[in-house]
């Protein structure tokens, strides 16, 4: 049970402060926390801090600090879960979580906090139950409208663009007022994978780890039943085998408690009645055994190893350099790439890399203390000390590394429902830590 809860911006300005028990300190505790956080020695963890008979525990989310204080010795996992759930809830009700949205919706936030926590004890965090109590409307910066899309089809023809919603389409507030039913019913389903890879200098794969989540954001009236079909060859664990091919395999899978799994065994269908708002339906992990080859390889050049139809977005290569390197001369293969030297490292930005292509760049740097200018990448002699591991960050749209795909998303038709709800399904892989040693 917590004593106080406050939200600070990334610079330490208090946005929200709420005291539940009145037994410790006043508003200045927020400043105290920020000072302590910035003054912490390097090896101490800032996650839980202690001052004056109080424990401060916080998470960072979207650039904000969400902090809770408590004087009891309670479970850190419950506290962290509560803070994450509050972050999601605030995001649902205000549209998205950020300094701007919080400052515009202060009254709503305080009302939410009142309902969620009573005297420091959690009452409920379910969006459903809270809807009945929350009266305030969320304030958005500008109402979302599909006409904002710059490319509406000519003559009403359906172009590629009208089948695609911008990625900010899901960031509007959950339907909170009971009267306004005219907004579109939509549901967004994301299959997001985080890829964490370590490649040794001789090219061998040291570690591969994929963490995946199926996230659902629903604006439908709650209680509507939904069925999500996954690839039928989806196997869990190393010993299962389905279908005729090698199948799509993950090591472990865990589901949200509201998902019904009766059809999962036979047809790989998940059935659930989601409340409004954001929900993580399923989490899975896969390590050491990717069915598809790795997206990127680096020898002297960067090579993108995938079919030609797909592409990678926002690829950035970060390569730490030996100390003292001051100048860089470069030769890049296309004008939209950029490379710059900053903070002891080389950053090479590739906005879009087409699948199956091979890109090369030549960088020459002067390293003081070494004879002659070395070329980029390993030569016959060992690389200079400080030429650190290259790390790549990228996004691969429409691609999942494990091969898992959502086959269909069906909604049980509600008789009093309005126009057919829109369904948006997205698959995405992005890099968590993709490191190639040189």
């Amino acid at each position, binding site marked *: 049970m917590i004593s106080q809860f406050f939200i600070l911006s990334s610079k330490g300005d208090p946005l929200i402060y709420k005291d539940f028990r009145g037994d410790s300190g006043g508003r200045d505790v927020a400043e105290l926390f920020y000072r302590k956080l910035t003054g912490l020695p390097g090896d101490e*963890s800032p996650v839980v801090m*202690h001052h004056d008979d109080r424990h401060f525990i916080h998470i960072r989310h979207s650039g904000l600090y969400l902090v809770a204080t408590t004087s009891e010795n309670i479970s850190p996992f419950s506290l962290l879960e509560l803070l994450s759930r509050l972050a999601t809830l605030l995001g649902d009700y205000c549209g998205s979580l950020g300094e701007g949205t919080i400052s515009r919706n202060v009254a709503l936030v305080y009302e939410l906090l009142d309902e969620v926590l009573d005297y420091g004890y959690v009452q409920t965090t379910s969006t459903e139950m809270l809807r009945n109590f929350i009266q305030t409307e969320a304030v958005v910066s500008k109402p979302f409208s599909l006409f904002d899309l710059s490319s509406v089809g000519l003559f009403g023809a359906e172009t590629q663009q009208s089948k695609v919603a911008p990625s900010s389409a899901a960031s509007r507030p959950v339907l909170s007022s009971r009267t306004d039913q005219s907004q579109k019913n939509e549901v967004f389903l994301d299959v997001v994978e985080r890829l964490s890879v370590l490649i040794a200098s001789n090219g061998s794969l*040291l570690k591969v780890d994929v963490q995946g989540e199926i996230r659902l954001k629903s604006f439908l009236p709650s209680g509507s039943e939904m069925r999500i079909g996954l690839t039928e060859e989806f196997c869990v664990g190393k010993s299962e085998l389905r279908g005729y091919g090698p199948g799509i395999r993950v090591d472990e899978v865990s589901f949200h408690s509201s998902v019904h799994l009766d059809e999962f065994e036979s047809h790989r269908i998940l059935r659930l009645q989601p409340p409004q708002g954001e929900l993580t339906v399923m989490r899975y992990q896969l390590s050491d055994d990717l069915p598809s080859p790795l997206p990127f390889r680096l020898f002297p050049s960067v090579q993108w190893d995938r079919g030609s139809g797909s592409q990678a977005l926002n690829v950035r290569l970060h390569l730490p350099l030996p100390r003292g390197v001051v100048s860089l001369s470069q030769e890049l293969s296309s004008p939209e790439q950029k490379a710059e030297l900053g903070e002891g490292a080389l950053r090479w930005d590739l906005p879009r890399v087409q699948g199956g292509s091979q890109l090369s760049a030549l960088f020459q740097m002067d390293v003081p203390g070494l004879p002659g200018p070395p070329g980029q990448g390993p030569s016959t002699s060992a690389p200079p000390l400080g030429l650190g591991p290259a790390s790549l960050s990228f996004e691969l749209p429409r691609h999942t590394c494990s091969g898992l795909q959502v086959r269909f998303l069906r909604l049980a038709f509600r008789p009093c429902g309005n126009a057919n709800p829109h369904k948006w399904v997205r698959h995405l892989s992005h890099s968590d830590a993709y490191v190639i040693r040189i």
Partner: protein
Amino acid sequence: MPYLGSEDVVKELKKALCNPHIQADRLRYRNVIQRVIRMSKLDQWGQAEVLYFLLRYQPRSEEELFDILNLLDSFLKSSSPGVVMGATKLFLILAKKFPHVQTDVLVQVKGPLLAACSSESRELCFAALCHVRQILHSLPGHFSSHYKKFFCSYSEPHYIKLQKVEVLCELVNDENVQQVLEELRGYCTDVSADFAQAAIFAIGGIARTYTDQCVQILTELLGLRQDHITTVVVQTFRDLVWLCPQCTEAVCQALPGCEENIQDSEGKQALIWLLGVHGERIPNAPYVLEDFVENVKSETFPAVKMELLTALLRLFLSRPAECQDTLGRLLYYCIEEEKDMAVRDRGLFYYRLLLAGIDEVKRILCSPKSDPSLGLLEDQAERPVNSWASDFNTLVPVYGKARWATISKCQGAERCGPELPNTASFATSGPLIPEENKKRVQELPDAGALMLVPKCQLTAECFEKTWLHLKVAHQQVLPWQGAVHPDTLQMALQVVNIQTIAMSRAGAQPWKAYLSAQDDTGCLFLTELLLEPENLEMQISVKQNEARTEALNGFISVLETVIGTIGEIKS
């Protein structure tokens, strides 16, 4: 009172925990508890609260215990980490007499813990890593096959990387030692100096069991000639040589040449120590020490100078011809020109020792060169699970044992009440102190406040006899409101070493308590606390077996402070 998801659950729990009839009847209590566990309408917060309440429950028989564990099995597979950890802790505590059940549940919780360690949320990752370390204290092989999950990645914050390196150090076994050492070797050349040093210390930790490979890696690191790396490697060598004498030869071969790359105090001390103790195997030891002596005037760290004195004298015993001159110059400098008194004293001491003869010097300075048994002591393999089971899923593993100890000490001192020698409190001390003594008494507590001896065990009969025998030395009333909570009061008195002989139950009228305490000179204080039904005051009567007014006043002020604090907390 938490909501717990539904009214029914709250009703049931209230029944179980507050209704004395149910608590008295074992069977009814147990039925209510089981009904609560079976309730499916609990949300994850309710489940976590229920698991927390159940920690207080003591099953009577083994059958009942396994019944409850079976019911709780489903909680272990929940998607909420708070519930999973709460259930694990409950299992560990309920099954404290069945170590194989504890091991089973720790195997089951491996999956969720590993998932939390790779979670997107860094804070959750950190909390999970701390708990993994906790488990590794008792089951070192538990995570050995999953060592890859603990490799550090580039973008992680520093505190997570440090925890992961510690975990890697602790889960090393024969199968994964090669890969783990390679990975740690990669970290030793990391851009961040702190992290590189932590990795080197970790290799030093592993070196106690896998000495040869680690010494080889550390020797290679010396070849890089980087300051921050060399100093830590030399310190690691010093620790290693003390615990594992078999690697001394290899270390001595690696040392020459690294003195050029050490600038900081710790590194220099380590190097000088090594040269002193094992100097006969290192060919150029006297010359390195001579270099240090040449520069001793510009040496800023007194600790280095002290170490230099000892090391040079030791080396002199084994290689007298080469060191004699240098030793003389060093002693001259330390005695005549050195400003730091500690260094000068040591120099003087060694000079006189030398005057006493070489045999005396040998007798004093020839200490053992290594102590392998210390390594076994420190390792303290495999503490039993029960020693940390009650700390699992609390903030204790997240802080770490050392920091938690300091925190609870601070909290205990604060709760003891505000400062003892508060002179204003003497105004109510009663008519027994003559006016001229008051000033003296006011100064006294600052000097040496009353020292109450802990654990002074006075039996009830002894107390009664002494009580009836003595006359009241002091009486006082303190304002009070409402009923007394005996447990809180007893604990608070315990903190200041006042023992409770007898105390009425909460709500008894009139409410009485008898306390005893003894100070370090053997003076006994016996106290009666009385709270009348209608009064808003607590009466205190104190009896003393020796008539010493200062001690009495000290004791009274301690008592007042404690009772005053308890009174404030309630109101």
